């Protein structure tokens, strides 16, 4: 649960839910937007993680 990826998934889910419910009124649209946001957050997180991988940080 406290791994980086686990926390990123929990964080992405929470933020996606709030954004989707704020931005859309109908439950179907909320689920669709929430799923897209969640995928975007997780995908971007993994992509940026790999882009940073070669850097000597």
């Amino acid at each position: 649960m406290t791994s980086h990826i686990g926390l990123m998934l929990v964080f992405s889910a929470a933020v996606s839910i709030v954004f989707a419910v704020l931005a859309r009124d109908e439950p179907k649209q909320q689920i669709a937007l929430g799923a897209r946001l969640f995928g975007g957050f997780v995908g971007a997180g993994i992509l940026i993680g790999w882009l940073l991988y070669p850097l000597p940080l």
Partner: protein
Amino acid sequence: MRAAAADRAQSPSAIYLICAVAWLIPGAGHLWLGRRQKGVVFLAALTLMFAFGLWLEGRLFPFEITQPLVVLAAIADLGIGGPYLVAKALGAGAGRVVAITYEYGNTFVIVAGLLNMLVVLDVFDIAKGRK
């Protein structure tokens, strides 16, 4: 589905009262205006997010005016409203800087507060009759 209470604009004093309640209890503004589904989701998601941040040993930042970034974090923390006041009263949110989850906890707590500010702005728009 929109409830009738949310379809008409509220009086100016009522708008600010609803916004204050929305800040104090995440989701309460939407519940007040008849948007039950949204209110319940905000209440659950934001409160759990804040509590999760504290569980991860995040810190409730103090208002240290000599450190502008800390003040910004404190303002963001305060955005969650009631849960912040309850946590402060219970002595939670001291933060443990050496904990491996410290920064993650801070992120959860700060973002929960910022999201609640967005929720309050949404309540303001609904109460004004714009949405």
